[in-house]
């Protein structure tokens, strides 16, 4: 068993275990930490897949930002005791199994079609690729417009989040 396979198995275990903890824990704080473990596992997969920049982005944005935001949300709200209803679990299970079947069919129904590599591309190297990504974001012909729209979206969300979470009527409270 090579080191890469071992790393894959360890990361897969961490990711899935984190996801299961997120779903099953009765304590929302435990759910948040399970989500953190899962997101770190996904960041590890990004490294294995050769997208180092995305791995760093994942850690900074998700683990450093989103999970901390969730933890703030957890702290601002008291624990909520919820019932486990059999009907709900059954319905969710049916949907999950149906989605699993569809996804498995998608993964295994496409054998051989992934490998249509652009013949002009040479062997991949992470450093060259991230340069291409940067150029694509700044290229009018490529993704410049979506990139700018994303910045406006972030600004709108920032202002909107502050406005929504503000206490009604109170001034500066």
């Amino acid at each position, binding site marked *: 068993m090579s080191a890469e396979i071992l790393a894959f198995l360890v990361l897969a275990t961490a990711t899935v275990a984190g996801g299961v903890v997120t779903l099953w824990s009765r304590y*929302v704080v435990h759910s948040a930490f399970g989500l953190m473990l899962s997101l770190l596992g996904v960041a590890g997969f990004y490294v294995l897949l050769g997208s180092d920049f995305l791995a760093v982005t994942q850690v900074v944005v998700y683990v450093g930002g989103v999970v901390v935001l969730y933890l703030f949300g957890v702290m601002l709200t008291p624990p909520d005791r919820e019932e486990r209803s059999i009907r709900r*679990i059954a319905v969710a299970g049916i949907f999950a199994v149906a*989605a699993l079947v569809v996804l498995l069919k998608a993964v295994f129904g496409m054998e051989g079609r992934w490998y249509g590599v652009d013949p002009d591309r040479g062997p991949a190297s992470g450093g060259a690729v991230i340069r291409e990504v940067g150029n694509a974001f700044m290229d009018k012909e490529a*993704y410049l417009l979506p990139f700018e729209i994303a910045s406006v*979206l972030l600004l709108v*969300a920032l202002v909107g989040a502050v406005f929504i979470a503000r206490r009604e009527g109170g001034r500066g409270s």
Partner: protein
Amino acid sequence: MIASILAVLPAAEGIPNPSIPTSWVLLLAALLFILGIYGFLVRRDLIVVFMSIELMLNAANLTFLAAARERMLDPEGQVYAIFVITVAAVEAAVGLALLIAWFRLRATLDVETAVELEG
């Protein structure tokens, strides 16, 4: 069928870590997505519902990057993944703000208490 599932499919030359088959990564992403769907449907706590959405978005990102690696680290995969991460961050910020506003309104996060629009 099972043999083809577990077989190490031939990967393209020159991609990072070619000993890890792309189908394994896709399977893991599918599993993560299923976990997200299950949590989204089964949990009633709004915070955990949001966390399930994050799991699903991450599964989609993993699929993008697995496909990008298979295509000699196609930069488009990373571009789309960055957009997905942006939208996820926006969703978390606005979602948490809505959650706080909602909690002020009714002092619970149970999604089944939202019944005003039922006929």
